[in-house]
Every structure is written in C-alpha cells, then in structure tokens.
C-alpha cells in the first residue's frame, strides 16, 4: 500500500497552478500525487511559498528541520523561519521567471530559526514555480555548524546590519557605477515614497527627480561626479506627488570587485526649514516691537535736539512724555523677552510663601485701574478667604496680564470680575470679562509663545504676544496651571490655578 502524502492544497486552498510540469523535457510522466510524495521523501527540506502569504506546504525534512509537525508550519511566514531572507531575494527571482537560464535558483546563506527559537546556518536556494513568479520552492540545507560558524556569523551580521540600517532616521541609498540604486534602507524608501523592494535597479535620477526632470542637463544626474559633496537644499520629487526639501551627502564606495559607486544619505529638511521660518518670524516680530517705541523715542528727542520744538512749550513737554512712556514700553518688552528666556531655561527664581488670594487680586486690579478708568470698564474684586502658596510678585504679574487683557478687550460700561474659590488642593483665581470672547479655533493656541508671532503685514493686536506665554510659564513654575474658557458674544474667563496653602 503506497504511503499517501497530503497534497499541499488539500485543505481547500485554491491550487496556484503549480507548474512543476513533470512530463516536460522527456522526463518520466508522474502523477501530481507521486510528485508530492517524491518531494516529501527528498533528503532536503523543501518549502512551498507564495509571495506575501504564510507557508503553503513543507515536506517532512523541512518539518523536522524547523521542528514543527504541521504541514504548513502553523501558518508561519517564510521570514519567521529565515529572518535574514529579504523580500528582494524572492522578488529578484520573480523578475527572472521568464529567463529560463536563471530558473535554477539562487543560493544564499541565511540564518534559520526553529520552532523552539534556536538558530542554525542554512544554505537556501529559491526557485520560481509559477509563470507569474508568485510561487516559489525554497530548498533549505542545514550547514554544518562546525566549519560553517563563519557563515552563520555572516548571516547574523547581515541581520544586525540590516536592523541598524533600517533603524536609521536618515535615508541611505547605494548607487552603482551605472547610476542605478543597488540598495536602500526603510527611511530612504519612505522619503521617496517607493516600496523598498522597488528601489534596487531604479535609476538614481528617477528616484530623485521622477521621470520628468525639468532640468536639462540636471546637475544631480551623475552621482559619481558628486561624490564627496553635501548639497542642500535639494527638492526631492515624491512619487505620491509634491516635493520634499532634503540635504544629500554623497560618499564614494567601492564594491567588492573594486567598481566605483556612491552611498547617498538623504536628510529631510522640512522641520529645520520650518524652525528657521519660525525664527525669522520671531525676529521680525520682536524687531518690529522694539522699533516701534524706539521710533517714538528717537523721533521726539531729535525734534527737541534740533530745536524744531521748544522743550518748554506744551508740544515740547508732550515730546518728553512720549519719549518717557515709549522708553518704559521698551523696558517692559525687554523684561518680557528676558522672562521668556529664563522661563524656557527654568531659571526664574520664585520666593514661595503663604499669600491671601484677595490681596493678590486686589493688587492686580490696582495696577490696571488706570486703563480700566480710561476704557470705562468696572473692575470688581470678590472678597474671599482663600490662601495660596505663591511668589506674590510673580502671581500678581500673571494676574495683571490677565486683568489687563480683559480690560483691553472689554467694551465701555462692562465689568471685569476677579474672584477665587477652592477646588480640592487648589485655589482657582479667575478673571472674567464681558467682552467679545475668543473664537474656539484660537482659544487652543493663545498660550503658545509663538501663537502671536505673525510674519505677515497684518497684525490684529499690538504687542509681541508674549504676555500669556509668560503668564502660563510662571503659573507652571508655581506648580499651577493657566487655562481659558470663552463664549463668543458673552466673554472670557481666565483661571490661574495655584496650590492651596495648608490649613494652620
């Protein structure tokens, strides 16, 4: 009674038109079942693989070698069994499927992994079995562990190198002497928006500038001529559309046969350019804020110095007043910039002590009372008994900013209310106005220190927009928070949450 070996697709998997054609070439005409039996009895381990799918079938030696009784090795992927085997090892075979000279398979040394996790060096031969190039027979021969330690080490080294290579944030491409990509890491594939397996063989210039480069001749077309250079910025034309600014560095690399090639590293410049733009806008805004009071100071003093205006006249006194208030404004702005720098570095010294919340609120109201009177806004401080742990000067600085903003954006005849209440181990000091309110899309970013930085010519508000960023930074240094809620047409409430002072 002949032993029957289960056919690889007996479990209902559609037959992938396995083309082992036993009758071709004058060889003995065998039944398919006999063929599978032969494969099962073969001394070498044989795996049947379809690209991108779990293993379809494994013969008896393969099941023994990999330590699993299951025919399909329990749905494992080829890369589970041999992590060092790269997709291009299969893809390369697939491309050669129509070239009969090469359909004999390619031998490589890989690291095999058994079901128990142990590793062994293996010689692997991959052969295409279908015309479509999607099915492969993989022959695996365990190499002697003794003399082949070097090969196992080589396989392990290759695996380690690949892991390191793919963990790099920068894209790396190898270019051969003909200008075609010979290898690329994951980051490079992601930057150029191509599949990693599509990179080998693709012309370098096509990877960089797509199929239709508008430059003729393109200075980047010959990578070997650029070896040793770093070029920035280069506009990378992405396959998915659009461009990406990158810096490219090219270094000469000779292959094992001495043939020249280059290794290109690609560094994405998007974030660096964004930061540079942000810095330019910040410099532009701060420059504008410094120059505005400076213009008033210089203008008024130059009028007095030239005798165009008599210092003793009403106009002369007005010029002196403008110079004085403008220099104060300049001084406050410089203090703000320094504060922001210190806050960012965490170097604002705080002298924390027990403080009366009503006293802090009243001090802020007092400081802003002049502009409140000018703007016809009523300031109301609600008495309370709460005590907080705070640096009095800095807490009042935060509250002055909040009350000052509230007054600035309140219509005449409206009220700004200052209050405090206990919530758990916190005291919430609130400033509520009856102004126009803040649109919800802006509410989330008003504390961002760059939110007010606007490089455009249109500025909706005076000031460098540093006040709220500083206030929030100070609140956080107290171990507190600064938050805002707002309703359009009704008004806004800013809440400074500070640690409550312990009961005495």
């Amino acid at each position, binding site marked *: 009674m002949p032993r029957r070996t289960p056919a690889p697709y007996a479990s209902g998997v559609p037959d992938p038109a396995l083309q082992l054609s036993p009758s071709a070439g004058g060889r003995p005409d065998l039944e398919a079942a006999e063929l599978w039996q032969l494969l099962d009895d073969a001394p070498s381990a044989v795996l049947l693989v379809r690209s991108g799918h779990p293993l379809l079938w494994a013969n008896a030696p393969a099941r023994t070698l990999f330590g699993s009784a299951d025919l399909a090795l329990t749905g494992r992927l080829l890369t589970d069994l041999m992590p060092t085997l790269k997709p291009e090892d299969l893809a390369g075979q697939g491309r050669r499927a129509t070239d009969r000279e090469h359909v004999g398979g390619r031998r490589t040394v890989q690291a095999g992994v058994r079901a128990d996790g142990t590793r062994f060096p293996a010689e692997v031969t991959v052969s295409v079995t279908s015309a479509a190039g999607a099915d492969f027979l993989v022959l695996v021969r365990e190499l002697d562990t003794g003399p082949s330690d070097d090969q196992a080490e080589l396989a392990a080294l290759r695996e380690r190198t690949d892991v390191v290579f793919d963990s790099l944030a920068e894209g790396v491409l190898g270019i051969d002497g003909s200008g075609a990509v010979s290898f690329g890491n994951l980051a490079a594939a992601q930057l150029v928006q191509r599949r990693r397996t599509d990179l080998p063989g693709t012309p370098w210039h096509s990877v960089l500038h797509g199929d239709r480069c508008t430059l003729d001749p393109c200075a980047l077309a010959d990578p070997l001529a650029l070896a040793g250079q770093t070029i920035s910025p280069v506009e990378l034309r992405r396959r998915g559309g659009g461009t990406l600014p990158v810096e490219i560095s090219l270094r000469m690399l000779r292959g094992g046969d001495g043939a020249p090639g280059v290794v290109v590293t690609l560094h994405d410049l998007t974030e660096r350019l964004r930061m540079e733009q942000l810095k*330019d806008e910040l410099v*532009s805004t701060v*420059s*504008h804020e410094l*120059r*505005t009071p*400076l*213009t*008033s*100071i*210089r*203008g*008024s003093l*130059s*009028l007095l110095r*030239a005798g*165009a*205006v008599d210092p003793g006249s009403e*106009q002369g006194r*007005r*010029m002196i007043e*403008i110079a004085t*208030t*403008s220099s104060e404004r300049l001084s406050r702005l410089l203090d703000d910039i320094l504060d922001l720098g210190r806050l960012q570095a965490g170097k604002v010294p705080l002298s924390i002590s027990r403080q009366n919340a009503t006293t802090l609120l009243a001090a802020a109201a007092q400081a802003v009372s002049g502009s409140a009177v000018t703007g016809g806004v009523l300031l109301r401080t609600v008495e309370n008994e709460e005590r907080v742990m705070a640096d009095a000067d800095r807490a009042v600085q935060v509250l002055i900013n909040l009350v000052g903003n509230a007054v600035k954006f309140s219509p005449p005849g409206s009220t700004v209310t200052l209050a405090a209440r206990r919530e758990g181990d916190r005291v919430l000091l609130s400033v509520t106005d009856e102004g126009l309110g803040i649109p919800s899309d802006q509410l989330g970013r008003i504390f961002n220190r760059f939110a007010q930085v606007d490089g*455009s*010519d*249109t*500025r*909706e*508000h005076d000031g460098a927009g540093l006040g709220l960023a500083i206030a929030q930074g100070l609140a956080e240094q107290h171990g507190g928070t600064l938050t805002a809620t707002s309703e359009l047409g009704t008004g806004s409430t800013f809440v400074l949450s500070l640690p409550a002072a312990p009961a005495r």
Partner: protein
Amino acid sequence: MTRRVLIIDDDATIREITAITLTHVAGYEVSAASSGAEGVASARADVPDAILLDVMMPGLDGPSTLAQLLDDDKTRHVPVVFLTAKVQPSERARLEGLGVRGVIAKPFDAMQLVGDLNRLLAW
C-alpha cells in the same frame, strides 16, 4: 503752494511725531489716518501730494492699502513711501517691488526723515 502729506499709521505716537516733524521741520500740511481703510477714504476725499504708509497694521495692512490706492483713478498717481520696522533686505526688496517711491525704516531721526522723504519724492 504748501505740499500736503497724508500719514497712515496705526500707532498714535508715531502719527503724532511724524506729523509734528513734517509740519514744523518741513512746513508741510499734514493729515493722518489710523488705519488703511481710513487712509484710503481720506486720500479719495482729499487727494494729497504724497502718502507715508505704515506696513504692519491690523485689518488693511500697508501693501493692501497701497493696492487699493493704485486701483483708484483718483489716487493712483499719488507717490507713496512705506514707513516700516521691517528692515531685513528681503523684506525691503519685497516692499520696494510693490510700486512705491521708496521705503523708510523705523526708527527714524526727525531731521533725517524730512531729508529722505524729499529725496524719494524729488521735492
């Protein structure tokens, strides 16, 4: 005949100092507007001989104000000089390319302002 200059700037003290400078030092007749929209309306109603225009303003900024002035037959011919705190060379080149007689940087010396303005306007 006294030359008439319109100053458009959202900063009150700069309007005041510029107005005093042009009145007392240069002897010009000066009017002022605190926004781009107000400035365009003022220039249309009473066409000046020159306009000193701030760049960074809320609402209608300097370049947008200039565009409206250039778009109007009544004000198209009036020479405009930008007054700006934006002094980077690239910014200056951008502003000069918009069709103005020139750009004067802030901060300015009162005496220097008159000289620069007269030179740019060929007065």
